[in-house]
């Protein structure tokens, strides 16, 4: 009885002393089980194809002679935005090249391109799905939160166990982290399309698919492009972390620079990443500005 009062006082001031949830152990056990059970499956069936995709992209990029690469880059920048953007892209890439990081750039670029492609291919359909059904989004929203906020450091280790080091776990971590904005903003953009337009499309007997592609997606495009932009930015921001598990590229420069207190080296790597980001941003911005949905803001 006498003990109870201080206990209660203790509980009130620090209720969490009572007991500890042994989640740590559960997790360790679970991961061990997971790794034991699935390692060979992942390593045999998942990693190789993903790796093959990434490596072929990488092979394509690295085996293209830089001058040809720059020419192609110019054309891409020009067609998707303007010749100014094309020129900017060339200058940016040339600078990175003269910093001696051309190879690293190609590695990082292939990582980012692959990751962003995966994000789009998976994320846009999911975003569309979310915009259709409130329930889907309600369920997905916490999952997106998990994807974006679980520190990659948490799953790096299990990822290495399951997928080995190198590109594949780096790619997977990048996809996980970078996909949510695509999903969220696709969902938001489609939801914001004024009802009168979908209604008009419905009245003409459009199928849901037609409404989607002929009305909703075009009108939501500025928002979807903002999502894509965020996805690219986040993918680039994962480059260093991917390097920690052996994905190489520009991130490695940064990572080494940090560990060696070599601010210059870290900066050069960072500059490379930033220039790459700007180039990708400008190109996607160009695509976005051409989106017909931009007309909707006008004074109709």
């Amino acid at each position, binding site marked *: 009885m006498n003990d109870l009062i201080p206990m209660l006082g203790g509980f009130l001031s620090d209720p969490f002393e009572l007991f500890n949830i042994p989640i740590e152990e559960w997790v360790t056990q679970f991961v061990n089980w997971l790794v034991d059970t699935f390692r060979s499956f992942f390593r045999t069936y998942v990693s190789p194809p993903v790796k093959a995709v990434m490596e072929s992209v990488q092979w394509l990029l690295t085996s293209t002679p830089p001058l040809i690469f720059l020419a192609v880059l110019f054309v891409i920048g020009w067609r998707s935005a303007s010749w100014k953007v094309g020129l900017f892209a060339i200058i940016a890439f040339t600078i990175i090249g003269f910093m001696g990081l051309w190879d690293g750039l190609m590695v990082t670029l292939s990582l980012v391109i692959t990751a962003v492609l995966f994000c789009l291919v998976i994320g846009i359909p999911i975003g569309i799905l979310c915009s259709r059904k409130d329930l889907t989004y309600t369920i997905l929203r916490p999952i997106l939160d998990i994807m974006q906020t679980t520190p990659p450091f948490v799953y790096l280790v299990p990822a290495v166990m399951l997928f080995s080091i190198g590109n594949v776990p780096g790619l997977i971590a990048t996809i996980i982290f970078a996909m949510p904005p695509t999903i969220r903003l696709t969902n938001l953009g489609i939801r914001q399309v004024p009802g009168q*337009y979908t209604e008009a499309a419905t*009245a*003409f007997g459009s199928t849901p698919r037609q409404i989607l592609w002929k009305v909703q997606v075009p*009108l939501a495009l500025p928002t979807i492009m903002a999502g894509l932009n965020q996805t690219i930015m986040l993918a680039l921001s994962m480059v260093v972390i991917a390097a920690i598990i052996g994905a190489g590229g520009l991130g490695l420069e940064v990572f080494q620079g940090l560990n060696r207190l070599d601010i210059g080296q870290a900066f050069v790597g960072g500059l490379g990443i930033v220039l790459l980001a700007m180039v990708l941003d400008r190109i996607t911005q160009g695509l976005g500005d051409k989106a017909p*949905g931009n*007309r*909707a803001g006008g004074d109709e």
Partner: protein
Amino acid sequence: MIRAEGVTKIFGPDPDSVPPLLKQGKTKDEIQAETGHVVGVNNASFQVGAGEVFVIMGLSGSGKSTLIRCINRLIEPTYGKIILDDPEFGDQDIASMDEQTLRQMRSSRMSMVFQHFALFPHRTVLSNVVYGLEVQGRDKAEREELGKKYLEMVGLGGWGDHYPNELSGGMQQRVGLARAVATEAKILLMDEPFSALDPLIKVQMQDELIKIQRELDRTILFITHDLDEAMRIGDHIAIMEAGEIVQIGNPEEILVNPKTEYVANFVEHADPTGVITASTVALPFKDRHFEASGEEQDVTYWHRKGYPEIRFGVDKDGKLKRMTFEGNNVSIHALETCINEADNAPARHTDAAVYCQEDTILKQVMRGRAYSELPVVVNDSEGRMTGVIDEPELINGILEKRGYAQDD
């Protein structure tokens, strides 16, 4: 072709709570004040024949748009059936149609002009117009051709490549119109399609509408606030009040025999000269108004009470054979033959009279009166004289929108 039965739409969280209140005789306003539910449409039933233009009128907020949207299920009716009798789809209730059929029906049978236009802002004018055709899966060349044709029809041939936000309100409305007619669907739902148009283009559009309606035998449901328009193009007019249809009839019926005070007020401002027919305003050729004054050969002479100077010689079939004014015979002409002359005549004839048909509109009758000072004679389709129109009848018709017919 379309039959609506007891269509009802209640807006609000719990629509089922409302019908009992309606049964208790509560009004729309009371229900809204008490429960927050809005009665959009209340128990509307009507029938639209194939190839007919059915006009819906009524106060702002009386449920016209809601009703028309129930027909293609843009709004899900709370209760009621909408039977579509279609050669391809058979007798079907749209209200309970499955998604798939509904879509097919919308794309192949119905199209719609929206009150707020609802043009797609991201598509050019032309590609707005061809939207319905795209959905139908027509090929590109065909689409473009049809699209251009209908864009031409609404007078916007040169604007195909512009975007809707570069167009004036009325131009946008016409694009919406072209988009709807371009699908060549049999049923057109039109929600105030000409509201933003000036009188000239509006008349053109009405003419075009009637033309394509005739050519393709389309059924049209048409909401308008323009009485003259309603009278002009409507085969039938339904008047709505607070969600209910209070009267359905052809234009003249509505104008001449309004069922309620509300309808009467409603049509008060209509210009009757284009709608009201001769038979409506004519003084009926009956004993009460006429007296016989002698016979001659095969005819009996009649004169209107109080006006013995004008005598009508009618044969035993009831046909007008001769006419005299102050004892002199006057010639009798069909109205159509003397309209042109009337327009140019320096003075009105007293030696000639005019006759018209029962369904001749007042405007025409007036032309007859401009030609001749004598009363216009109204004949039925068999050629029998059924009444006469003198100035008082005309004035009464124009001002009061009704004639002696009521008195009988």
